[in-house]
């Protein structure tokens, strides 16, 4: 018998009035995987994770967690699962430690010292006896991780865990998730940052307005990605544009930012830059703009009202 999937969500739909917040989503997470659910604001990531936790009921579809459903097992379906939805919330009039003690009580108790252990893991030992009401956003986020680890989960579900953190906090949070994943924990993580998912996850589902826009491994996603873009500044932009023609790169005047944008495979861009220098055109700056995966993410998730597609730009330029 094969081990049950950590998460096996089939055709899950949730509507709010006429809005299909989650529309026929299928997501399967194997044990040991680090799985990313990526999507812009309002894509339905949180709604899906709330259904996973049984906080809201799907209109249709089934969600199995390690083989259990909410219908059959009730809250037992969450055995081995921990995590948090949006920002973790606690009782502000209790200390961090008292909050964890209470949550442990709701889990059937914990061994002595375990609370200290999880507090140390998230670097909150010295603040544990202060009231949570006085915690900063990042501290609450870390307490949320501690509260999740207290359950010794096999599956950790995190909804935009780095949201609202400062750069150091984001770095620490990602490092922690990576360490936890390396220790064998299955992680299901939602994010709206492609770089975060690329850095942490093996598999990804990209959601767009409730539906799946892409599903596959990070490697598959990379293969689909467009060429990388660069912003280029030279001493002679007109000459630089002319020179591009026989180097397999696309060079355009960037009306918004000034300077040029260069799009093409990495090697072609390198050859083009060498040719610029050889032609006596001074190179003042060459900086990557969007990473290819970011560009792909925007292409997959753009709305009519959102960003313009590359062909739109071409049309505008052709028109004048």
């Amino acid at each position, binding site marked *: 018998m094969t081990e049950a999937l950590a998460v096996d969500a089939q055709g899950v739909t949730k509507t709010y009035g006429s809005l299909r917040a989650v529309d026929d989503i299928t997501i399967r997470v194997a044990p040991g995987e680090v799985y990313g659910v990526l999507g812009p604001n309002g894509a339905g990531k949180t709604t899906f994770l709330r259904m996973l936790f049984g906080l809201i009921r799907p209109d249709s579809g089934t969600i199995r967690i390690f083989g259990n459903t909410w219908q059959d097992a009730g809250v037992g379906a969450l055995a081995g699962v921990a995590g948090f939805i949006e920002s973790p919330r606690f009782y502000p009039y209790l200390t961090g430690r008292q909050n964890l003690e209470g949550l442990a009580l709701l889990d059937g108790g914990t061994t002595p010292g375990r609370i200290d252990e999880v507090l140390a893991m998230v670097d909150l030992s010295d603040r544990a006896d202060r009231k949570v009401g006085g915690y900063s956003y990042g501290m609450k986020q870390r307490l949320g991780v501690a509260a999740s680890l207290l359950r010794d989960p096999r599956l950790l579900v995190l909804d935009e865990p780095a949201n609202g953190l400062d750069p150091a906090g984001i770095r*620490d949070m990602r490092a922690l998730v990576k360490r936890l994943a390396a220790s064998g924990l299955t992680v299901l993580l939602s994010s709206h940052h492609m770089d975060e998912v690329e850095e942490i996850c093996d598999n990804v589902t990209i959601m767009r307005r409730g539906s799946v826009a892409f599903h596959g491994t990070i490697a598959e996603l990379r293969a689909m990605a467009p060429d990388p873009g660069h912003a280029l500044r030279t001493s002679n932009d007109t000459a630089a544009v002319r020179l591009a023609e026989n180097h397999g790169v696309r060079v355009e005047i960037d009306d918004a930012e000034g300077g040029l944008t260069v799009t093409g495979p990495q090697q072609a861009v390198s050859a083009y830059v060498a040719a610029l220098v050889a032609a006596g055109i001074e190179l003042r700056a060459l900086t990557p703009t969007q990473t290819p995966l970011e560009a792909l993410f925007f292409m997959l998730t753009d709305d009519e009202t959102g960003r313009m597609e590359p062909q739109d730009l071409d049309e505008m330029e052709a028109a004048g």
Partner: protein
Amino acid sequence: MTATIETFAGRRPHVQPRRVGTGAVLRWELRKLAHQWRAKAVLLAALVGPIPVVFVIHGQSRPPKDSLFGRFATENGFALALLILGFAAQWALPLLTSIVAGDIFASEDQHGTWKTVLTRSTSRGRIFWAKTLTAALFAVVTLAVLAASTIASSVLIVGRQPLTGLSGQQIAPSHALALVTASWASMLPGMLAFTCLAILISVWSRNPAAGIAAPAVIGMVMQLVGALGGVEPIRPFLLSTGFEAWHGLLTAPRFTQPILEGAVTSAGWCVVTLAIAYLTLRRRDITGG
């Protein structure tokens, strides 16, 4: 977050995945209550509040003759304890119990903590019953403290004189003490019914202010409706009717039927309000927090 993380895979969990009973949740709720200033404030008010009231009424030159037992209240401790009881029943008892019961569910919405507790190993049903039990226990303790403080301060400050009953009969001090205590105790079913009503409003409105204020207002409206003429068909269903049932204990001959009827009415209110609250919470989508 620099501390080392031990390997999770294959490790025996510290927490055995199992469902946790109502008892554990009840302990958690009581612990939270003990850390809330408003719960402590209610108990403190119930304990010391009656003392100045007793002093002030005792010091009046003209007794409040229009109120039940008001005529003797300035010079008879038992009468004073009953005067305060009549006053407390109007809105103080519903308000005191609502301060906890009207907040106990809605505060989870206020703090956004439903998702925190519902993603552990406890079902919504168990959390519901633990919270309900906590609110009921708090109501019992509050009523007991208020009654004990009122009776003790009235008797100690004003004295243990023989009490004139509602039929003009004289009641010996020792017997009067038992009747006054029983009168206060007869408030319990109604107070529990207001507790359940506050729970329903707390679950339904998700707003602590509504959960606390609405039961007291509803209590006063019932009082008002009960005082109108031509409401005989609905009078038995009003919680305020049960709050006046103690009058029967102080007549000669004594009649206790209204107390029983009041208890049945209160039980009915409890069952209906709790059933609606339970179903509402069970079915609800937790989208906030």
